[in-house]
Protein backbone atom coordinates (compact mmCIF):
# COMPACT_ATOMS: atom_id res chain seq x y z
CA UNK A 1 0.00 0.00 0.00
CA UNK A 2 1.47 3.35 -0.96
CA UNK A 3 1.78 6.21 1.47
CA UNK A 4 -0.91 8.14 -0.31
CA UNK A 5 -3.32 5.27 0.04
CA UNK A 6 -2.37 4.71 3.68
CA UNK A 7 -2.94 8.37 4.48
CA UNK A 8 -6.20 8.36 2.65
CA UNK A 9 -7.26 5.24 4.52
CA UNK A 10 -6.34 6.91 7.81
CA UNK A 11 -8.33 9.98 6.92
CA UNK A 12 -11.26 7.78 5.96
CA UNK A 13 -11.08 5.87 9.24
CA UNK A 14 -10.96 9.11 11.22
CA UNK A 15 -14.01 10.32 9.32
CA UNK A 16 -15.77 7.03 10.00
CA UNK A 17 -15.28 7.45 13.77
CA UNK A 18 -16.48 11.03 13.70
CA UNK A 19 -19.25 10.90 11.12
CA UNK A 20 -22.74 9.63 11.73
CA UNK A 21 -23.56 6.62 9.52
CA UNK A 22 -27.00 8.13 8.91
CA UNK A 23 -26.44 11.78 7.98
CA UNK A 24 -22.78 11.29 6.92
CA UNK A 25 -21.79 14.42 8.83
CA UNK A 26 -19.84 14.94 12.03
CA UNK A 27 -22.08 13.74 14.84
CA UNK A 28 -24.27 16.20 16.71
CA UNK A 29 -25.02 14.95 20.26
CA UNK A 30 -23.36 11.54 19.70
CA UNK A 31 -25.57 8.83 21.16
CA UNK A 32 -24.74 5.14 21.49
CA UNK A 33 -27.31 2.36 21.25
CA UNK A 34 -27.05 0.82 24.73
CA UNK A 35 -26.99 -2.83 23.59
CA UNK A 36 -24.40 -2.63 20.79
CA UNK A 37 -22.73 0.77 21.37
CA UNK A 38 -23.06 1.82 17.72
CA UNK A 39 -23.05 5.61 17.66
CA UNK A 40 -25.22 8.09 15.78
CA UNK A 41 -26.44 11.67 16.12
CA UNK A 42 -29.21 11.78 18.71
CA UNK A 43 -31.65 13.17 16.12
CA UNK A 44 -30.71 10.58 13.50
CA UNK A 45 -31.20 7.72 15.97
CA UNK A 46 -34.50 9.19 17.10
CA UNK A 47 -35.56 9.28 13.45
CA UNK A 48 -34.79 5.55 13.17
CA UNK A 49 -36.98 4.91 16.19
CA UNK A 50 -39.82 7.17 15.04
CA UNK A 51 -39.87 5.62 11.59
CA UNK A 52 -39.87 2.06 12.99
CA UNK A 53 -36.86 1.05 10.98
CA UNK A 54 -36.27 -2.07 13.02
CA UNK A 55 -33.33 -1.66 15.35
CA UNK A 56 -29.78 -0.44 15.06
CA UNK A 57 -29.01 0.67 11.50
CA UNK A 58 -25.61 -1.04 11.63
CA UNK A 59 -26.36 -4.40 13.29
CA UNK A 60 -30.19 -4.43 13.57
CA UNK A 61 -29.84 -5.07 17.29
CA UNK A 62 -32.50 -3.72 19.67
CA UNK A 63 -32.71 -0.02 20.54
CA UNK A 64 -33.85 0.66 24.10
CA UNK A 65 -36.69 3.23 23.84
CA UNK A 66 -35.74 4.70 27.20
CA UNK A 67 -32.88 6.65 25.67
CA UNK A 68 -35.51 8.87 23.98
CA UNK A 69 -37.75 9.33 27.05
CA UNK A 70 -36.17 12.25 28.85
CA UNK A 71 -32.69 12.41 27.47
CA UNK A 72 -30.11 14.60 29.15
CA UNK A 73 -26.54 15.28 28.13
CA UNK A 74 -23.75 17.50 29.26
CA UNK A 75 -24.04 19.77 26.29
CA UNK A 76 -22.84 23.11 25.06
CA UNK A 77 -26.21 24.55 24.32
CA UNK A 78 -24.64 27.21 22.11
CA UNK A 79 -22.49 24.72 20.23
CA UNK A 80 -21.56 25.73 16.67
CA UNK A 81 -22.24 23.55 13.62
CA UNK A 82 -19.59 20.83 13.45
CA UNK A 83 -17.54 20.54 10.23
CA UNK A 84 -19.47 23.36 8.60
CA UNK A 85 -18.64 22.79 4.92
CA UNK A 86 -19.12 26.35 3.75
CA UNK A 87 -18.17 29.55 5.48
CA UNK A 88 -21.44 31.02 6.60
CA UNK A 89 -22.93 33.86 8.52
CA UNK A 90 -22.11 32.38 11.86
CA UNK A 91 -19.31 30.83 13.87
CA UNK A 92 -16.98 29.97 10.99
CA UNK A 93 -16.25 33.67 10.57
CA UNK A 94 -15.02 33.84 14.16
CA UNK A 95 -12.81 30.82 13.62
CA UNK A 96 -11.12 32.35 10.57
CA UNK A 97 -10.29 35.50 12.45
CA UNK A 98 -8.74 33.52 15.30
CA UNK A 99 -6.57 31.56 12.90
CA UNK A 100 -5.14 34.74 11.49
CA UNK A 101 -4.18 35.91 14.95
CA UNK A 102 -2.56 32.58 15.80
CA UNK A 103 -0.41 32.63 12.72
CA UNK A 104 0.67 36.18 13.46
CA UNK A 105 -0.27 37.36 10.02
CA UNK A 106 0.23 41.05 9.29
CA UNK A 107 -3.06 42.85 9.42
CA UNK A 108 -4.56 43.26 5.99
CA UNK A 109 -5.59 46.92 6.01
CA UNK A 110 -8.06 46.54 3.16
CA UNK A 111 -9.72 43.61 4.84
CA UNK A 112 -9.89 45.49 8.14
CA UNK A 113 -11.50 48.48 6.48
CA UNK A 114 -13.93 46.21 4.69
CA UNK A 115 -14.88 44.52 7.94
CA UNK A 116 -15.40 47.92 9.61
CA UNK A 117 -17.84 48.85 6.86
CA UNK A 118 -19.37 45.39 6.84
CA UNK A 119 -19.16 44.14 10.39
CA UNK A 120 -19.30 40.35 10.67
CA UNK A 121 -22.90 39.22 11.10
CA UNK A 122 -24.06 38.66 14.65
CA UNK A 123 -24.45 35.02 15.58
CA UNK A 124 -28.14 34.16 15.58
CA UNK A 125 -29.94 31.16 17.04
CA UNK A 126 -33.25 29.57 16.10
CA UNK A 127 -35.58 28.34 18.83
CA UNK A 128 -38.83 26.39 18.70
CA UNK A 129 -41.52 26.25 21.32
CA UNK A 130 -41.82 22.96 23.16
CA UNK A 131 -45.02 20.93 23.05
CA UNK A 132 -45.66 21.68 26.72
CA UNK A 133 -43.76 24.86 27.46
CA UNK A 134 -40.47 26.63 27.09
CA UNK A 135 -38.05 27.15 24.23
CA UNK A 136 -35.72 24.66 22.62
CA UNK A 137 -32.85 25.24 20.26
CA UNK A 138 -32.92 23.50 16.88
CA UNK A 139 -30.19 21.05 15.94
CA UNK A 140 -27.38 23.44 14.91
CA UNK A 141 -27.17 21.93 11.45
CA UNK A 142 -30.89 22.46 10.82
CA UNK A 143 -30.61 25.90 12.41
CA UNK A 144 -27.96 26.79 9.85
CA UNK A 145 -30.26 25.78 6.97
CA UNK A 146 -33.08 27.85 8.46
CA UNK A 147 -30.82 30.87 8.91
CA UNK A 148 -29.56 30.63 5.32
CA UNK A 149 -33.11 30.53 3.98
CA UNK A 150 -34.05 33.43 6.24
CA UNK A 151 -31.08 35.52 5.08
CA UNK A 152 -32.01 34.69 1.47
CA UNK A 153 -35.42 36.25 2.25
CA UNK A 154 -37.34 33.11 1.36
CA UNK A 155 -40.94 33.27 2.66
CA UNK A 156 -40.81 29.65 3.84
CA UNK A 157 -38.32 26.83 3.86
CA UNK A 158 -38.44 23.09 4.41
CA UNK A 159 -36.30 21.07 6.78
CA UNK A 160 -36.27 17.36 7.50
CA UNK A 161 -36.28 16.55 11.21
CA UNK A 162 -36.07 12.90 12.27
CA UNK A 163 -36.99 11.90 8.73
CA UNK A 164 -40.14 14.06 8.73
CA UNK A 165 -40.42 17.09 6.46
CA UNK A 166 -41.39 20.32 8.23
CA UNK A 167 -42.14 23.79 6.92
CA UNK A 168 -40.71 26.90 8.57
CA UNK A 169 -42.98 29.84 7.80
CA UNK A 170 -41.00 33.07 8.22
CA UNK A 171 -43.96 35.42 7.86
CA UNK A 172 -45.82 33.84 10.79
CA UNK A 173 -42.67 32.56 12.53
CA UNK A 174 -44.14 29.08 12.88
CA UNK A 175 -43.14 25.53 12.14
CA UNK A 176 -45.50 22.73 11.14
CA UNK A 177 -45.26 19.22 9.66
CA UNK A 178 -45.49 19.51 5.88
CA UNK A 179 -48.51 17.21 5.80
CA UNK A 180 -50.30 18.75 8.78
CA UNK A 181 -50.59 22.51 8.98
CA UNK A 182 -52.70 22.38 12.15
CA UNK A 183 -49.81 21.09 14.28
CA UNK A 184 -48.09 24.43 14.28
CA UNK A 185 -45.68 25.72 16.89
CA UNK A 186 -43.89 29.03 17.29
CA UNK A 187 -40.29 29.60 16.33
CA UNK A 188 -38.08 32.59 17.01
CA UNK A 189 -34.74 33.97 15.89
CA UNK A 190 -32.63 35.30 18.74
CA UNK A 191 -29.19 36.75 19.38
CA UNK A 192 -26.97 35.49 22.19
CA UNK A 193 -28.40 37.99 24.66
CA UNK A 194 -32.01 37.03 24.00
CA UNK A 195 -30.98 33.37 23.94
CA UNK A 196 -29.79 33.68 27.54
CA UNK A 197 -33.02 35.41 28.49
CA UNK A 198 -35.17 32.68 26.91
CA UNK A 199 -34.32 29.99 29.47
CA UNK A 200 -33.67 27.46 26.69
CA UNK A 201 -34.44 23.98 27.97
CA UNK A 202 -32.24 22.02 25.65
CA UNK A 203 -31.10 21.18 22.17
CA UNK A 204 -33.19 19.22 19.66
CA UNK A 205 -35.08 17.30 22.34
CA UNK A 206 -32.10 16.70 24.63
CA UNK A 207 -32.38 18.49 27.99
CA UNK A 208 -29.33 20.36 29.17
CA UNK A 209 -28.10 19.03 32.49
CA UNK A 210 -28.72 21.46 35.29
CA UNK A 211 -26.73 21.60 38.52
Amino acid sequence: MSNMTANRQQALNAAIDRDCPICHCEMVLPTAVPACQHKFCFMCLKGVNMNHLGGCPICRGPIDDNIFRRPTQQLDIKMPVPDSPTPSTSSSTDREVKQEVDEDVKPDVDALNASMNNPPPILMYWLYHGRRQGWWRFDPRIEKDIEEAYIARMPVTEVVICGQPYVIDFSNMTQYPKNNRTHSRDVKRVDAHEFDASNVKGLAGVFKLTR
Partner: protein
Amino acid sequence: MAAQLPRRIIKETQRLLADPVPGISANPDESNARYFHVMIAGPDDSPFAGGCFKLELFLPEEYPMAAPKVRFMTKIYHPNIDKLGRICLDILKDKWSPALQIRTVLLSIQALLSAPNPEDPLATDVAEQWKTNEAEAIKTAKQWTLSYAQA
Protein backbone atom coordinates in the same frame (compact mmCIF):
# COMPACT_ATOMS: atom_id res chain seq x y z
CA MET B 1 -40.21 26.53 -1.72
CA ALA B 2 -37.86 23.68 -2.48
CA ALA B 3 -35.98 22.34 0.51
CA GLN B 4 -32.23 22.32 0.45
CA LEU B 5 -30.63 19.10 -0.65
CA PRO B 6 -29.46 17.23 2.46
CA ARG B 7 -25.69 17.11 2.89
CA ARG B 8 -25.78 13.35 2.87
CA ILE B 9 -27.21 13.31 -0.68
CA ILE B 10 -24.59 15.82 -1.83
CA LYS B 11 -21.81 13.72 -0.29
CA GLU B 12 -23.12 10.45 -1.72
CA THR B 13 -23.43 11.98 -5.19
CA GLN B 14 -19.92 13.41 -5.11
CA ARG B 15 -18.49 10.06 -4.10
CA LEU B 16 -20.50 8.12 -6.69
CA LEU B 17 -19.11 10.38 -9.40
CA ALA B 18 -15.53 10.54 -8.10
CA ASP B 19 -15.17 6.93 -7.06
CA PRO B 20 -17.69 4.85 -9.03
CA VAL B 21 -18.44 1.19 -8.33
CA PRO B 22 -17.02 -1.11 -11.06
CA GLY B 23 -19.75 -2.03 -13.51
CA ILE B 24 -22.14 0.60 -12.19
CA SER B 25 -22.73 4.23 -13.10
CA ALA B 26 -25.15 6.57 -11.38
CA ASN B 27 -25.64 10.14 -12.52
CA PRO B 28 -28.01 12.68 -11.03
CA ASP B 29 -30.57 14.21 -13.36
CA GLU B 30 -29.79 17.80 -14.39
CA SER B 31 -33.12 19.11 -13.18
CA ASN B 32 -33.67 16.87 -10.14
CA ALA B 33 -30.77 15.97 -7.87
CA ARG B 34 -32.87 13.25 -6.21
CA TYR B 35 -33.36 11.38 -9.47
CA PHE B 36 -30.48 9.23 -10.76
CA HIS B 37 -29.90 7.64 -14.15
CA VAL B 38 -28.27 4.30 -13.42
CA MET B 39 -26.50 1.76 -15.62
CA ILE B 40 -25.54 -1.69 -14.37
CA ALA B 41 -23.40 -4.01 -16.48
CA GLY B 42 -24.60 -7.62 -16.40
CA PRO B 43 -22.16 -9.60 -14.21
CA ASP B 44 -19.80 -11.90 -16.15
CA ASP B 45 -20.90 -15.00 -14.24
CA SER B 46 -24.57 -14.49 -15.08
CA PRO B 47 -26.94 -14.91 -18.05
CA PHE B 48 -26.97 -11.09 -18.17
CA ALA B 49 -23.26 -10.85 -19.10
CA GLY B 50 -22.63 -8.42 -21.92
CA GLY B 51 -25.83 -6.57 -21.15
CA CYS B 52 -26.14 -2.97 -20.12
CA PHE B 53 -29.18 -2.39 -17.92
CA LYS B 54 -30.76 0.99 -17.42
CA LEU B 55 -32.42 1.76 -14.09
CA GLU B 56 -33.93 4.80 -12.43
CA LEU B 57 -33.34 5.56 -8.79
CA PHE B 58 -35.26 8.14 -6.81
CA LEU B 59 -34.52 9.38 -3.30
CA PRO B 60 -37.82 10.21 -1.56
CA GLU B 61 -38.14 13.21 0.72
CA GLU B 62 -37.75 10.96 3.79
CA TYR B 63 -34.47 9.44 2.56
CA PRO B 64 -32.45 8.04 4.32
CA MET B 65 -35.28 7.22 6.75
CA ALA B 66 -37.01 5.61 3.78
CA ALA B 67 -35.42 3.45 1.06
CA PRO B 68 -34.62 4.75 -2.40
CA LYS B 69 -37.12 3.77 -5.09
CA VAL B 70 -35.39 1.78 -7.81
CA ARG B 71 -36.76 0.33 -11.04
CA PHE B 72 -35.32 -1.40 -14.09
CA MET B 73 -36.05 0.54 -17.29
CA THR B 74 -34.50 -2.17 -19.47
CA LYS B 75 -36.56 -5.32 -20.02
CA ILE B 76 -34.99 -8.21 -18.13
CA TYR B 77 -35.84 -11.90 -17.68
CA HIS B 78 -35.28 -12.41 -13.95
CA PRO B 79 -37.46 -14.09 -11.30
CA ASN B 80 -37.15 -11.17 -8.87
CA ILE B 81 -37.84 -8.39 -11.37
CA ASP B 82 -41.30 -7.98 -12.89
CA LYS B 83 -42.58 -6.63 -16.22
CA LEU B 84 -42.69 -3.10 -14.86
CA GLY B 85 -39.08 -3.32 -13.71
CA ARG B 86 -39.98 -3.49 -10.03
CA ILE B 87 -37.39 -5.28 -7.93
CA CYS B 88 -38.05 -7.77 -5.14
CA LEU B 89 -35.22 -7.07 -2.75
CA ASP B 90 -35.62 -7.01 1.03
CA ILE B 91 -33.34 -4.00 1.62
CA LEU B 92 -35.59 -1.91 -0.64
CA LYS B 93 -38.55 -2.79 1.57
CA ASP B 94 -38.78 -3.97 5.19
CA LYS B 95 -35.03 -4.54 5.59
CA TRP B 96 -34.05 -0.98 4.68
CA SER B 97 -31.57 0.64 7.06
CA PRO B 98 -30.48 4.28 6.88
CA ALA B 99 -26.89 3.07 7.20
CA LEU B 100 -27.27 1.65 3.67
CA GLN B 101 -26.76 4.02 0.78
CA ILE B 102 -27.14 4.38 -2.99
CA ARG B 103 -23.84 2.60 -3.50
CA THR B 104 -24.76 -0.44 -1.37
CA VAL B 105 -28.24 -0.64 -2.90
CA LEU B 106 -26.83 -0.76 -6.42
CA LEU B 107 -24.24 -3.36 -5.37
CA SER B 108 -27.07 -5.50 -3.98
CA ILE B 109 -28.97 -5.22 -7.26
CA GLN B 110 -25.82 -6.20 -9.16
CA ALA B 111 -25.52 -9.23 -6.84
CA LEU B 112 -29.17 -10.09 -7.46
CA LEU B 113 -28.34 -10.39 -11.18
CA SER B 114 -25.63 -12.94 -10.31
CA ALA B 115 -27.89 -14.85 -7.95
CA PRO B 116 -31.54 -14.99 -9.04
CA ASN B 117 -33.73 -16.25 -6.22
CA PRO B 118 -36.81 -18.07 -7.63
CA GLU B 119 -37.91 -19.01 -4.10
CA ASP B 120 -38.90 -15.38 -3.45
CA PRO B 121 -40.38 -14.45 -6.81
CA LEU B 122 -41.90 -11.26 -8.09
CA ALA B 123 -42.37 -12.43 -11.68
CA THR B 124 -44.10 -15.73 -10.89
CA ASP B 125 -44.04 -17.11 -14.46
CA VAL B 126 -40.31 -16.47 -14.75
CA ALA B 127 -39.70 -17.98 -11.32
CA GLU B 128 -41.71 -21.06 -12.28
CA GLN B 129 -39.62 -21.52 -15.42
CA TRP B 130 -36.44 -20.99 -13.39
CA LYS B 131 -37.46 -23.73 -10.96
CA THR B 132 -38.76 -26.30 -13.45
CA ASN B 133 -36.29 -25.79 -16.30
CA GLU B 134 -33.33 -23.68 -15.27
CA ALA B 135 -31.38 -24.31 -18.50
CA GLU B 136 -34.29 -22.98 -20.57
CA ALA B 137 -34.73 -19.99 -18.22
CA ILE B 138 -31.06 -19.09 -18.52
CA LYS B 139 -31.30 -19.38 -22.29
CA THR B 140 -34.26 -16.98 -22.36
CA ALA B 141 -32.46 -14.57 -20.02
CA LYS B 142 -29.44 -14.56 -22.39
CA GLN B 143 -31.71 -13.97 -25.39
CA TRP B 144 -33.44 -11.05 -23.66
CA THR B 145 -30.05 -9.63 -22.73
CA LEU B 146 -29.04 -9.73 -26.39
CA SER B 147 -32.34 -8.31 -27.60
CA TYR B 148 -33.01 -5.55 -25.09
CA ALA B 149 -29.89 -4.76 -23.05
CA GLN B 150 -27.41 -3.56 -25.62
CA ALA B 151 -25.90 -0.13 -24.94
